[in-house]
């Protein structure tokens, strides 16, 4: 078993490699731009008796909108960074060096995967929190309400990114070339987003089921958890909230587990 301290050292090195200048700055800037601009100026009139629930629904709405607008760029970032982590290391030989070190393959895979997913989740979530707080903060009570709501987005973003990370890992370890893998992973992310934009006049009754796609499921899971209401007789409102959470977890693991098994048991460096 590789000790926790060793894993932490490797994680630190992998994070500093993957998020080296100007990747972090670019990611923060791009996601901040989307986060800050997706929330409009706060002007809302409500009755005093309903104030707390209205205030909460304003935050939920802003959070949902923010997460929805962030997901596409996040998937693209995830695709590029995973390719840089797996395919580029394979191409340049660092993967060979790591796999020849006395550290388990499980540790290498999980560290490389998490070195992309965890910072990306934290950047996304941190910027959602920042944008929501600067928009709705007025006093400590408001801040606590904001935190209580926004904290729920953290696991959802993480699980959503696990899915795209899994696809990108599959692509990177199959193609094993940096640029083609990055482009393919971006295309895959874009495709998953694109199919959710299709309307019923193009795909008929299938459009009703698009909320079950890996792109929409985490958003609906978050929305249902936060009490967002969806039109009656739609899958979003018929399926229980936990159903969407289970679906999101399944999506998160559907590529991750096979890729983990492949990397730890079958992956070879032949070139």
């Amino acid at each position, binding site marked *: 078993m590789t000790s926790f301290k060793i894993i932490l050292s490797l994680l630190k090195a992998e994070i500093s490699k993957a998020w080296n200048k100007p990747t972090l700055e670019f990611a*923060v800037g791009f996601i901040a731009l989307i986060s800050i*601009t997706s929330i409009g100026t*706060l*002007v809302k*009139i409500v*009755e*005093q008796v309903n*104030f707390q629930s209205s205030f909460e629904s304003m935050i939920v709405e802003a959070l949902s909108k923010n997460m929805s607008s962030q997901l596409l760029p996040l998937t693209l970032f995830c695709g590029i960074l995973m390719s840089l982590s797996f395919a580029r290391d394979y191409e340049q030989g660092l993967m060979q060096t790591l796999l020849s070190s006395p550290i388990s393959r499980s540790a290498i895979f999980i560290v490389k995967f998490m070195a992309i997913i965890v910072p990306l989740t934290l950047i996304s979530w941190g910027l959602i929190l920042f944008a929501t707080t*600067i928009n709705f903060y007025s006093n400590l009570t408001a801040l606590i309400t904001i935190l209580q709501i926004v904290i729920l987005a953290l696991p959802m973003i993480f699980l959503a990114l696990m899915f795209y990370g899994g696809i990108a890992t599959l692509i990177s370890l199959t193609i094993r070339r940096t640029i083609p893998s990055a482009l393919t992973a971006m295309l895959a992310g874009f495709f998953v987003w694109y199919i959710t934009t299709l309307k019923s006049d193009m795909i008929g009754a299938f459009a009703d089921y698009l909320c079950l796609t890996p792109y929409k499921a985490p958003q609906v899971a978050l929305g249902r958890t936060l009490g967002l209401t969806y039109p009656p007789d739609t899958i979003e409102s018929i399926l229980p909230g936990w159903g969407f959470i289970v679906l999101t977890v399944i999506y998160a693991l559907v590529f991750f587990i096979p890729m983990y098994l492949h990397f730890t048991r079958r992956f070879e460096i032949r070139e």
Partner: protein
Amino acid sequence: MIIGLILLMNTATEHVPGDFIYSYGEVEVNETYCYVVSIAPVGIGNITIGFFSPPESDIKIGNTPPGFLEPVTLPIHVKVEDPANQTLFEEDIISPYSFEVEFNLRGQYSVYLTNNGDEKSPIPMGVRFPYGEGNPINREADKFLLGIILSTLGMSFVALGLIIKLFLKRH
């Protein structure tokens, strides 16, 4: 620096929407209803009492359902408090009535409306801002300030870093 610049850019172009109307059913005689305006510090705006929709001058014919245009005529006692519970406006008015309020704090402004008339009546309330793109008066003052602080601090750190690097290289 990046976040500061984005905030600056955002608050420089962002502007408040033109008009918000809210109406709560009907208010009994001598009863007080309270509306809460959650708002950013966007400067001067108008609180309108008794209008169901924007004043006629702003309405394009055909855009608003007929019958919606009729203003409510009613004697009302109005009190407006800012988020720090300071009274900004307190008067007896006859609706429809509009008055200026300066929104300088982010948070909840309370508007208390007491029906001083003879019969129960709906009392619609709205907040109006001048139409137009990027009215600098109506930008979010606190975000703008935060943007300036963050970008100035960021730029200072970058400049300091560059100077130190240059100095270290030379020596």
